[in-house]
């Protein structure tokens, strides 16, 4: 019995900090088969319960072991429309892999890596697309936002025969997958291919349309759309609200990452959008976005990149793997530290950061120990840029312009049930706009549930009409 997961080849840290190529390079066939052989093929697989979209995990792993990769990917795609994405960014350690029986004594089976292997195999070996033969029912459904939740709902609805249009505010579909997650963790070619898969199912994507500005939900009703799924994500950056935060050289993580990922500023001046990164960069926050921003800054040539986080490493919300990758790349960690003032020079550009040390106090409502500042522990560090990565909240553009749509105090949409039904009877919502910033896979789970509920709603409506 192999006790440990089969290692996945990675670019060595000293090499990868000089490029934006993918860090984790994926299993070879031999490695995949070796890892697949670790699966015990449980009769009652616990891993499936841990998967928000319920993939038949033992079945696809068995197919990999048999070298029948085509069947493996088909099994995955019965439940998951975007496996190449999930295989890369899902937090498997708290989902399927956490439940894996192997994990009780040894390391769990590397389910995520195997999922990625199967989907990469498909992207590589099946360039020609087979048009699905679904009978179209002609009913128009609008999906707002083309991130993980929107793409999933759209794909599922298209598979059921609906005429689906996704409206996307940006010029490129993919949502957080294209503007948020960097190339070295989520190659944009992969996102593009997954989006093409969804389009191939018959889904139309209209970019450059901001629902709430360019059109409203009411306008779309007039255009003949019968139901709506709102999946506009949590796009508004939260700032620190400390003095000096508007100095030139302070970025929200959203701005920093959007410039680099979506606008390709890392290839300036080949691409027109600039980004400015000095020698010393501080990133405030302890989540995956903070790790992404820090690692991007490193790749853009910063000599010293620091993560500043108010609690200790145990409380960091980032995935363990991301924290490790950041450390390997030489990112420094200032833990139990809070910034209190951004310092500027005479050009009103960032020159430093004033911080205070914290100790951990009583647990908060989520059970994480609260940071308490230690009086007199203030200190200053020299920096050229500050990137604020302390979270995002839902964008109010759509909720403000849709009368009757109930919203929580913090901006999230109120849902009435597990399917994401909102206070308006033909509108569903899911993903970060309902949950607050969360994971790609939970957004996809919400998309699936909403698609099912929308289908039931439409069928019921047709039945009622027929009875009349």
């Amino acid at each position, binding site marked *: 019995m192999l006790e440990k997961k089969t290692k996945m080849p990675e670019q060595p840290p000293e090499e990868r900090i000089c490029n934006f190529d993918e860090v984790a390079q994926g299993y070879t066939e031999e490695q995949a088969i070796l890892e697949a052989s670790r699966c015990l093929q449980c009769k009652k697989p616990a891993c499936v319960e841990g998967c928000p979209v319920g993939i038949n995990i033992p079945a696809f792993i068995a197919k990999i072991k048999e070298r029948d990769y085509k069947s493996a990917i088909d099994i995955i795609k019965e439940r998951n429309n975007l496996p190449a994405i999930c295989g890369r960014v899902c937090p498997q350690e708290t989902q399927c892999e956490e439940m894996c029986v192997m994990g009780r004594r040894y390391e769990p089976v590397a389910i995520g890596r195997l999922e990625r292997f199967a989907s990469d195999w498909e992207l590589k070996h099946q360039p020609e697309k087979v048009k699905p033969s679904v009978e179209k029912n002609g009913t128009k459904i609008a999906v707002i936002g083309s991130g993980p939740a929107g793409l999933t709902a759209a794909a599922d609805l298209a598979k059921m025969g609906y005429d689906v249009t996704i409206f996307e505010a940006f010029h490129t579909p993919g949502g957080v997958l294209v503007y948020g997650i960097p190339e070295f963790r989520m190659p944009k070619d992969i996102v593009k291919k997954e989006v093409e898969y969804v389009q191939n199912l018959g889904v139309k994507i209209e970019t450059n349309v901001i629902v709430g500005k360019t059109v409203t939900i009411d306008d779309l009703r007039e255009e003949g759309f019968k139901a709506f799924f709102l999946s506009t994500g949590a796009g508004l950056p939260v700032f620190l609200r400390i003095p000096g935060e508007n100095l*030139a050289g302070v*970025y929200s993580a959203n701005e920093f990452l959007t410039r680099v990922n979506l606008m390709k500023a890392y290839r300036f001046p080949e691409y027109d959008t600039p980004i400015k990164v000095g020698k010393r960069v501080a990133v405030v926050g302890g989540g995956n976005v903070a790790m992404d921003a820090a690692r991007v800054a490193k790749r853009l040539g910063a000599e010293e990149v620091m993560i500043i986080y108010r609690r200790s490493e145990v409380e960091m919300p980032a995935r363990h793997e991301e924290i490790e990758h950041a450390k390997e790349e030489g990112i420094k960690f200032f833990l139990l530290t809070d910034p209190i003032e951004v310092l500027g020079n005479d050009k009103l550009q960032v020159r430093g950061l004033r911080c205070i040390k914290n100790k951990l106090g009583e647990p908060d409502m989520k059970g994480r120990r609260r940071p308490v500042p230690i009086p007199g522990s203030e200190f200053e560090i020299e920096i050229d840029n500050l990137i604020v990565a302390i979270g995002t909240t839902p964008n109010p553009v759509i909720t403000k312009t849709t009368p009757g749509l109930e919203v929580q105090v913090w901006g999230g949409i109120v849902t009435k049930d597990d399917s994401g039904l909102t206070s308006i009877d033909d509108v569903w919502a899911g993903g970060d706009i309902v949950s607050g910033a969360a994971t790609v896979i939970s957004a996809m789970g919400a998309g699936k549930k909403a698609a099912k509920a929308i289908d039931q709603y439409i069928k019921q409506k047709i039945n009622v009409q027929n009875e009349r």
Partner: protein
Amino acid sequence: MFEIKKKEQLAPIIYQMEVSAPRVAKKALPGQFIIIRIDEYGERIPLTIKDSDPEKGTITIVFQVVGKTTTQLSTLNVGDSILDLVGPLGNPTELPEGKSNVICVGGGVGTACMYPQVKELSKRGSYVTAIIGARTKELVLLEEDFRKYASRLIICTDDGSYGEKGFVSDVLRRLLDAGERPDLVIAIGPLMMMKVLADVTREYGVKTMISLNPIMVDGTGMCGGCRVTVGGEVKFTCVDGPEFDAHKVDFNELMMRQRYYLDEEKVSKEKHACKLQLGGNQNA
């Protein structure tokens, strides 16, 4: 793709384009703007909507050639297309209800951005004074358009080659000195001009709104690049603006933020100029 239907050169480096954008044309109101990206390599830049025609499905933009993107945009012709165009963004101007007395001040290319307000105010039967300023005669914009809608039009140039000699702020001060007290002053132009105007109207206690055009990426409140301090509070120009109370805006901070990418803008523009030259040689 958004096709260019009309192109007109208004002044040596200022162009007007009518672009097909049916969804935007239906919704656009005075004071709103769009963001464009010319091609796959392009950056996203905000441009004010000068006019819109819902029936034709077109909007009109006016821009001055400043950096790489506006240079490239100026080389596009009727029949060419802009790859991406999104809007209308920002909040429409809050104009006084009913008949009112408003002075609209435009400087440089900002003059064009003020045109929709003047037109709308005139429709409401207001008494509108338009003060338009330029460096020199050939840079005076849209004189005929303004004549159609403004109750009174005052033109000034820095060098005195046309209209009054002096800055728009001089003209405005003269009117206020003479005892005029409009309900509102709207000013659109370079930051420095708006700052000076704000100082003038503050003295006389006249409410003044300005329209900002800072660096931004998405235009929907996502990046926060366009943040500005107004009355001690941080606002995002794209979703909270673009118009703000001139007496509350922190102009110094805004000007410094605006200059952050000057070096990069130069690099980008020079590279583009090189490419154009190379292209010319190949054709020759």
